[in-house]
């Protein structure tokens, strides 16, 4: 019997697969495909203080190896989420992580405070959405701001605080260290890579926001490298995200240093992606001679310089 459990700081998950923010809604639609308690956990769509209508369409463009999106954090706001979404989701017997997004430090603190006592497993600070004008990625590109926001949220939170990082920076390791310095319980990465597509006939960007975030299998090697780099840079656990579409991808991400993973775009392409990966994992682990999922974390053996 393979032990699929993993640990992210003080949290234990039945298996390493969490649904990524923005690619699973608040779980309701997906519950009509399969029981949500199969998953390790669910990260909600980003929640803001006020309801947001998001960006005008087109919000989506397909591209080789994935897609661009500029949804723009459309969500009903924290009051509605606490009233209408979380009570239902928390009854599905699956750990819930709430992804929160704000314009400035005080937004993040207020949101974290609003979630105290709600019964969720962790808060994920979205310091990385590239599709809004203020907050998020603007904060997540500045180590000082990452540290300040993390520290301020840690002060009010009653559950672990995860910091979700953007790959759109030069030195991702510095961002990870800033989150750790602020007291983060874990970091999660990557959010989407900023990209663009142009319609050659109209000479207009396909996405109305002009730019959008790139996700899907094409981003996997970038995500893997960044997860590896961050896991070397900090002692806190890393949750690996980006381009995972197969059981093999999960294992690779764990080997690179992830303690758990999140699956995003794969859910959009096949609603059964996560259960299918879960079904494939035990056989693959057996084939690899591994008895426990958690033992894979960081088990990559990098080539040493000058090695032959």
């Amino acid at each position: 019997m393979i032990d699929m459990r993993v640990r992210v700081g003080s949290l234990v998950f039945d298996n390493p697969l969490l649904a990524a923010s923005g690619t699973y809604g608040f779980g309701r639609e997906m519950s009509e495909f399969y029981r949500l308690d199969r998953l390790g956990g669910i990260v909600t769509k980003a929640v803001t203080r006020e309801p947001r209508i998001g960006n005008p369409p087109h919000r989506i463009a397909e591209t080789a190896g994935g897609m661009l999106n500029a949804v723009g954090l459309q969500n009903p706001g924290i009051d509605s989420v606490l009233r209408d979404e979380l009570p239902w989701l928390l009854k599905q017997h699956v750990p819930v992580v709430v992804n929160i997004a704000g314009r400035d430090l005080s937004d993040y603190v207020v949101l974290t405070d609003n979630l105290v006592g709600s019964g969720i497993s962790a808060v994920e600070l979205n310091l990385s959405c590239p599709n809004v004008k203020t907050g998020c990625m603007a904060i997540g590109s500045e180590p000082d701001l990452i540290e300040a926001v993390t520290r301020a949220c840690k002060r009010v939170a009653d559950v672990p605080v995860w910091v979700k990082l953007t790959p759109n920076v030069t030195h991702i390791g510095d961002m990870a260290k800033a989150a750790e310095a602020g007291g983060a319980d874990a970091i999660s990465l990557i959010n989407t890579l900023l990209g663009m597509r142009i319609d050659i006939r109209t000479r207009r960007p396909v996405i109305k926001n002009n730019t959008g975030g790139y996700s899907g299998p094409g981003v996997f090697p970038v995500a893997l490298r960044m997860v590896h780099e961050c896991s070397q840079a900090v002692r806190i656990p890393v949750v690996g995200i980006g381009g995972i579409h197969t059981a093999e991808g999960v294992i690779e991400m764990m080997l690179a240093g992830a303690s758990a993973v999140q699956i995003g775009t794969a859910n959009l392409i096949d609603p059964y992606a996560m259960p299918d990966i879960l079904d494939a994992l035990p056989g693959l682990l057996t084939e690899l001679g591994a008895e426990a999922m958690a033992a894979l974390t960081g088990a990559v053996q990098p080539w040493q310089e000058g090695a032959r």
Partner: protein
Amino acid sequence: MTMNARLKETAHVTGIEWLDSENALLRLNAPEAARLAQPGQFVLLAAGQMLNRPFGVALTDPDAGMVTVGIKKVGIGTGALLDLEQGSAIRLLGPFGHGFSLDNVNRAYVIGGGTGIFPLLFLLHVLRSRGVETFAGCGFRTLQQALLQEDFSDVSDQYLTACESGGGDVSGTAVDALDALYLGHGRTERTRVFACGPIPMLRAVNRWCETHDVAAECSFEARMGCGFGICRGCAVPVLKAGALDYDRCCVEGPVFDRRLIAWEALS
């Protein structure tokens, strides 16, 4: 709104019937979708690309387990689907979405343009079977581009083809066909317009309905990410208590009451 069925099945291509050089009917054996689909709903077909492609259900035969979609070849995904061999297996998700409402109507004006005509065929069949009077009009640029005229005639009390370049039953657009049909048949208290087509056509239908104070349901096409409600990629601008909001084309739509749409925000 009825709850969507959340389905994935392996569909088999039983035939591709070309209507002209660009448009074809793709016939699929997909028993679950055939059983569940309602007019106005769509299915997602895996086209070998990343994202699934949405297509309105054009006909069903639940007893034979058959679903037909009409496809216009416009890019890689539609091209790949129309290159499939008979017997090929493809992944089908759905049916999804909020379709046309069939209750409380006894006279229907069914107006289509572009690829919007395909799902209207299914609608007409069902309206007919429920004893609703059906008047249909489809718009094409030229008479050579007109499709499925006989199929539409078969399920309509009156059917008109409108051609912008002349030669059709009506010269002009689909809305001119609507106007001509309405002139002949007028209204009951339970008259409704059902429209599916490109945005300029839907906009014109809405304006016509405003002028004549007639209820209408319009079916929209939005770029989709998932097609089943989780990504919020498929935004359609709507008015909620007078303020702009975005509904999901794949869940709240693709069919919307015309009065809900924020027409000025639509591009």
